[in-house]
């Protein structure tokens, strides 16, 4: 496996380096698109490679990991790791992505890389069976527990509409860098779970979201702490029966990865990958209305990358 990983990584890095010179090959170069200021798009959409190669290529388009993580900083990565399901079920963010991100942060000089999720299933089983724990620890990161109220701290959220106050995991409140790393799935209540919905794993009381207008609270949760970087695993999204999923028949082959700084734009793009119409996912509209990001993708600087 190691040699295979090395070759994958090699291709990924190679693809990343080839980007600037070969950018004319990609559809993003068309003239009527919004200009990408300083070569940094707010949304990068990558497709056609394996997850790690797509992450490398996408990060390169955003200026590399060093534009997000500086030496000596503490980093918290929040994957979706909520379910006691194996990596092949796409119920959780793929461990290869999380592990690779931990590695990149460490290489960028991060003093500490922490990973956690407030899981729905038993946290120890979810951490272990998702493969995320192994991937994180192998790359020098640290899995934090989020299973007890003592790990959370009261946090005021004055600009929110409903979620004015929440108990937020201390790692989110205290870390220098917050990387949001969810997986794209259908959701039986919120209709879709991607970057914004992932914030429900940052707080202690998820029930508050459900009982105080789920969509509004999801939009409000962006304000708890806006992620410095969002990476959305859309390699094999769950199209139905989400967010836990029943079997592999629920998955579609999209082979994509979305990343960027505009959380609303990523979710709006992700919603289209699942075939949702405009306005189907109310929390996207609410977040745009609150000025948390741009949902109209024609106004977003998108870099589209297709890996061979």
């Amino acid at each position: 496996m190691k040699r295979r990983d090395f070759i994958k990584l090699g291709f990924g890095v190679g693809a990343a380096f080839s980007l600037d010179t070969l950018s004319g090959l990609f559809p993003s170069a068309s003239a009527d698109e919004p200009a990408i200021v300083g070569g940094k798009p707010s949304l990068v959409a990558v497709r056609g490679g394996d997850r790690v190669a797509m992450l490398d290529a996408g990060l390169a388009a955003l200026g590399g990991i060093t534009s997000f993580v500086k030496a000596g900083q503490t980093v918290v990565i929040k994957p979706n790791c909520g379910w006691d399901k194996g990596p092949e079920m796409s119920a959780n963010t793929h461990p290869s992505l999380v592990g690779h991100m931990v590695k990149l942060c460490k290489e960028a000089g991060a003093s500490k890389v922490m990973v956690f999720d407030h899981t729905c299933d038993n946290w120890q089983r979810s951490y272990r069976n998702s493969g995320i724990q192994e991937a994180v620890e192998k790359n020098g990161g640290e899995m934090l527990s989020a299973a007890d109220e003592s790990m959370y701290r009261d946090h005021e959220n004055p600009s929110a509409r409903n979620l004015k106050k929440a108990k937020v995991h201390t790692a989110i409140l205290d870390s220098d860098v917050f990387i949001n790393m969810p997986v794209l799935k259908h959701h039986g209540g919120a209709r879709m779970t991607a970057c914004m919905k992932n914030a429900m794993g940052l707080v202690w009381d998820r029930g508050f979201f459900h009982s105080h207008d789920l969509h509004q609270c999801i939009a409000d949760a962006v304000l708890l702490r806006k992620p410095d970087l969002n990476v959305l695993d859309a390699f094999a999204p769950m199209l139905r029966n989400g967010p836990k999923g029943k079997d592999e028949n629920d998955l579609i082959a999209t082979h994509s990865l979305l990343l960027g700084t505009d959380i609303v734009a990523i979710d709006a793009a992700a919603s289209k990958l699942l075939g949702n119409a405009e306005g189907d996912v109310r929390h996207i509209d609410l977040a745009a209305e609150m000025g948390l990001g741009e949902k109209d993708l024609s106004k977003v600087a998108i870099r589209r990358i297709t890996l061979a």
Partner: protein
Amino acid sequence: MWRAVRITVAITVMVLFVFGFINLSNREPTGWEHLVERLQFIPALLGTWRGVFGAAVVVGILVALTLLFGRVYCSFVCPLGILQDIVIRQRRRFDRLRGKKRNGTALRFAQPLPWLRYTILGILLVSVFLSGTALVAWLDPYSICARFMAGVINPLAANAQNFVEREVETQPAWGRYGWLLPAVVGAILLPLALAWWRGRVYCNTICPVGAFLALLSRAPLFRLRMDPSSCVRCANCVRACKAQCIDLKNYRVDTTRCVNCYDCVSACEHGLSPKFTFSRRREELPKTKNAKEPAETTTSSSRRAFLGLLACSASALATSSCREEEGNPGNPGELGENQDSAISPPGSKSVPRFLDTCTACGLCITACPTRVLQPASWQYGLRGVMKPQLDFTVGFCNFDCNICGRVCPEGAIMPLDLAEKQRTQIALAEFHRERCIVQQHYTECGACTEHCPTKALDTREEQFPSCNPELCIACNACVETCPQKAISLVGDESQGMHAQIDRTKCIACGKCSQACPSGAMTSQRLLIPVLTPELCIGCGACTYACPVRPKRAMQLTPRRQHLTAEVKREAPAENPVSTDEFPF
């Protein structure tokens, strides 16, 4: 040498026993960590009754060992026996420290009281026929220790770990046994206090395992024999004997009470040791004292009575195990009929079967990763006190987990392979629409469906109406069309009437907004749960996740007889958008 072997084995067993109940990382059990629990006599006996092959092997081994050596189980394997030995050892040390010689009456030969232990054993067997394992749970030495581990040692270990690691890794559950905790602790303190007082009193008067093994150890092949020719009557053996079973006057060891600790062998410098004795008869005793005769007759008559009882009980058990298969199947269509019962774990097959088998040792409770298994107080009735039930306010039954069946040493929870467990219906969900957040607040929720592993609970888009009083012309069209009679006209003549919807009655059919001629009645599309009962396995994830309080919108009705669920199968999902380019 014999004693050293005993102590080594006992310490190993005790360490494995304790660690079997400390479950800090929620790892999948490999089967080896609960080996010691599987070697216990009553669990193995119950397992044999329930057709577990491994348990039958264990019973065979224990019986064979007893016939060969005597009650080795009591000193080598039984956790309560080992704990008593530790207490007895401390008592001796305590006496030494105080510079006192042991009170002369404390540990010397005591006349046997066989009628007492056989009566208790007999009552116990009758009680198994009448009320399952309710009484066994209080008397079985393994279960007594095991519950103490589950209720005290397990949370202690979790707290210790949390203290050392400085972050909470596992939530300790001190309150697990609630008001039963004093009883759980008391049940283990009583035998230990008796041991402090005068040795293995519990084992030889109360313990049903001790009584049963006593029947098998009347003349073991390798039994302790005193050699009158070399014995100097120094009484070292008598002082060493925890079971008070060495009758020095008659050079005799009462093998029915001897727990094979071999302390006497170590204490004796004059040749006391287990010897091969190929004779069914016990040693001919030199008839010196008159007190011997009545004791012997009591033993054999009570033995006979007991054997009769044993036969009765065996047949009673056989018939009762047939009978329960006809139990109430629990029609999925009729909700609420089993409301009185608690929900028994998957693999227990039915509540009556479960209550007849489980001795409430609590091993599954400590092994359960979601903590949904909690000791019942009165929920099963008197028969089920301390036995595990599923408590959906604490957790829910993990879909991809079958650990409880794999750790149960008694066959009370049979091991199910994962595919079978995932289809076992232990309860049935009920959706109380009028309490649901979607219905009450007209906002989407989905907490229940997102947790449902079988998709018995899915969401469906429905039309939830609302009336704009400004536009309403009070024409009554919506009131007349509503199939639920959920709409009425409110207001007064001066300010104008308008339609008002009773959200507890509305079924979101959307007929009112279609009928409305003025555009006042609009509807929004919201997802609301729909239940397919045939798919529901009763794992309780929906109830656990439901945010509605105090009464949750999702409720679970126990199935007293577990059934098999259907499985929803769907064709592979098709990509809704082009895979060649981004849809944005």
